[in-house]
C-alpha cells in the first residue's frame, strides 16, 4: 500500500534509532518484536491526530455549533488524545496486552484450546483480506455498540463513563477523554472479542486510520450531517452530538454507535432529529468537566466509590 509507505518508514526509523537502543540500554530486548508494533501504533496515531486536526479544525471554525469565550477545557482533551493515540497508553497497553495474551494463550494451549478466527468460521473469507477486514470492522463496531450501551446501563459503570460526557466544550479532541478504568474495561472487552473471533493485526493501518478519523469527527463542534441516507450509513457529528446532549446524559441515552448507526437503528436507540443539542452532563462534578487530568481522574474515582456504596450513578 503506497499510501502507508511514509508512515511505515517513520515507524521503522523510530524503532531502529530510538526504541531499540533504549530497550538495549534498559535490558528489555525481549520486547523488541512487540516494540515495533507499538512504533507503528504511535506513528499511525500521530497521523490520525494530524489528519483529524487538518479536517476538523476548518470545519469547527467554518460551521461551529457553539462559541466559547475560552477553550481552556479543551487543552485537557488534547492531552487525553496525545496519551491515548501517540504516547504512553498504547505502550502500556501493548506490554500489558502482550503479557496477558501470552499467559492466557499458554493456559488455553495447555488445554488444547485454539481460539477461532472469523476466517476459520467462514472459510470463504480466506484470501479476501480487505473484505475480511471490513467484516471485522463491522463486528467490532457491533461489540463496541454494546460495550458503550452497557456503560450507560450499569450505574457503577456510568460513574466512570460520566467523565467522557462531562465535557461541555465538545470538540474532535473529546473522543479520547475517558477514565483510565473505563479504558481498562474497554481493553478487557476487546480482548474477549479477540479471543472469540480473532482480531487482524495492523494489516490495514490506513483503514484503521480512517475509522478513527470518523470517531474524532463525530465529536467535532460543527454543524455537519451526512444527509438522510448518509446519516443512516455512518455516524455523523450531528448524530453523535445527540448522544452527548445534556438531556441524554446518564443511564438513558441515544445514538451509542461509534462508526455505524445501524445498531442504534436495529435496537431502537437511534435519534435522527435535526437538532444540534447542548452537550455535557449536569450530574457530573465540575472537576470532571473543567479540572486538570488528575482532577478529572480523581473525580471519576470518587464517583465510582460513591456509586458502589449507594448504587446510584
Amino acid at each position, binding site marked *: 500500500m503506497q499510501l502507508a509507505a511514509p508512515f511505515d518508514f517513520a515507524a521503522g526509523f523510530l524503532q531502529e534509532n530510538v526504541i531499540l*537502543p533504549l530497550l538495549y540500554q534498559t535490558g528489555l*530486548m*525481549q520486547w523488541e518484536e512487540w516494540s515495533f508494533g507499538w512504533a*507503528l501504533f504511535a506513528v499511525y496515531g500521530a497521523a490520525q491526530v494530524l489528519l483529524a486536526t487538518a479536517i476538523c479544525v476548518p470545519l469547527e471554525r467554518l460551521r461551529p455549533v457553539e462559541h466559547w469565550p475560552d477553550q481552556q477545557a479543551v487543552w485537557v482533551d488534547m492531552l487525553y488524545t496525545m496519551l491515548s493515540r501517540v504516547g504512553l497508553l498504547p505502550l502500556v497497553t501493548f506490554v500489558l496486552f502482550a503479557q496477558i*495474551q*501470552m499467559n492466557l*494463550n499458554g493456559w488455553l494451549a495447555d488445554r488444547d484450546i485454539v481460539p477461532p478466527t472469523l476466517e*476459520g468460521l467462514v472459510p470463504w473469507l480466506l484470501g479476501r*483480506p480487505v473484505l475480511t477486514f471490513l467484516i471485522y470492522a463491522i463486528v467490532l463496531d457491533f461489540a463496541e455498540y454494546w460495550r458503550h450501551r452497557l456503560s450507560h446501563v450499569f450505574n457503577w459503570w456510568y460513574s466512570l463513563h460520566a467523565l467522557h460526557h462531562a465535557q461541555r466544550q465538545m470538540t474532535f479532541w473529546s473522543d479520547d477523554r475517558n477514565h483510565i478504568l473505563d479504558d481498562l474495561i474497554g481493553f478487557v472487552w476487546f480482548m474477549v472479542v479477540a479471543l472469540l473471533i480473532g482480531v487482524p493485526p495492523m494489516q490495514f493501518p490506513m483503514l484503521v486510520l480512517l475509522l478513527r478519523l470518523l470517531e474524532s469527527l463525530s465529536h467535532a463542534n460543527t454543524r455537519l450531517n451526512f444527509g438522510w441516507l448518509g446519516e443512516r450509513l455512518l455516524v455523523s457529528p450531528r448524530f453523535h452530538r445527540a448522544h452527548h446532549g445534556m438531556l441524554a446524559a446518564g443511564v438513558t441515552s441515544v445514538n451509542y454507535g461509534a462508526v455505524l448507526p445501524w445498531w442504534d437503528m436495529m435496537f431502537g436507540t437511534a435519534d435522527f432529529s435535526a437538532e444540534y443539542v447542548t452537550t455535557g452532563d449536569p450530574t457530573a462534578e465540575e472537576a470532571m468537566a473543567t479540572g486538570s487530568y488528575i482532577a478529572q481522574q480523581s473525580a471519576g474515582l470518587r464517583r465510582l466509590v460513591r456509586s458502589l456504596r449507594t448504587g446510584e450513578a
Partner: protein
Amino acid sequence: MPYHAPALRRLLMLCVLLCLPLAAEAQRSVLVVNSGEASLSVLDVTTHAETARIPVLREPHHWVLTPDRHELIIGDTAANELIFLDPESFAIRRRLTIPDPYQMGFTPDGSKLVVAGLARQQVDVYEAGSYRLLHRFVMKTMPSHIDFSPDSRVAFVSLQGTNKAAALDLMAMKELWVTQVGPAPAGVMWLGGRVLVAIMGADYVSVLDPASGAVIGRIQAGKGAHQLFLSPDRRTLFINSRVDSTITAVNAQSFAVERTYRVPGGPDDLIFAPDGRIWTTLRFAAKVGILDLRSGAVETIPVGRSPHGIYIKGAINSGHGGG
C-alpha cells in the same frame, strides 16, 4: 531452403540450449514472509520485481521445508496455523490448525517437527507427516528459536523472556537442562559439537557445551545479536544484530571476526543465493536487502511490512530449522 533446414534447426537448438540457464534463473523466485502485513511477497530473483503478493491470515514469521522437500510450511502465529505451499509455485495447498507456530524445525532424521510457541510459552513436538502432537513442553518464558543435535535426540531452545536456554530430550520427552546464557537469547545453532546462542540483549553469541549447558565461550558480534546462519561451504558463520543493524562474518572454526557489514533496517533472517550474495529481510524498513559480500554494498527491494522469513527456490538451507 530445404537444404538449409538442418543448419537452421541446429542454430535454433543452440539458442534453446544457451537460453536454458536463463530460463531456469527466471523461474527462480524468492518468497518473503511479511509478518506485519499478513502476506507473502514473491520476488523474481533476476529482475527483483514483486510478481505476486499472497494473502495469509494474521502474522506469519518463519518457514520450514518438509524433509522430502515436497512442501514448504509457513507458520502463522496469531492465526494458529501452518500453511503448506507448493515449494515451486508457492500455491497454497492446505492449512493445519496448530497453536502459535513461531520458529520451527524438523529433526535431522525427519521424524519430528518441533515448534516454538513464543507467545504461548510452549514447545510442541509433532510427528512429521501426520502432525500429531507427541508432547508439549511448557516453557517459561518466550521460547524463541530451536536447533537440534545431529542425532535428533535433543532440541536446544532459547528462552527469550529470561536469560536462559534449555535442552529438551525428544526421546524421553523431558527437560535435560536449563542454563543462564545471557540477556534475551534468540537464535540457536548446533555447530561442530557446540551449541551457539545469539544474545539479543548484548553483543555476543554464547557458546555452550551441549551435554551440560555450561557456557564455555563467547563470539563477538554487534549489539542485539539475533540470529545465526552458516554459509553453504560451512566456513563462515553470519550473525545478524538488531541494535547495530549489522551482519558479522565469523570464521566457523576459530570464531574470529572476519568482517562486519552494515545493513541498515534491522536485518533478520537471511539466505544464501546461488550467486553468492546474501538476501536478508530488513524488518523495520519493509524491504529485502541483497548484500554483496565482496563489496559490502546492499541493494534493497520493497516488500510488505515487517518482513521476517525468506526462502529462495534452490538455495541451500542456512543451517537452522528453517528461515
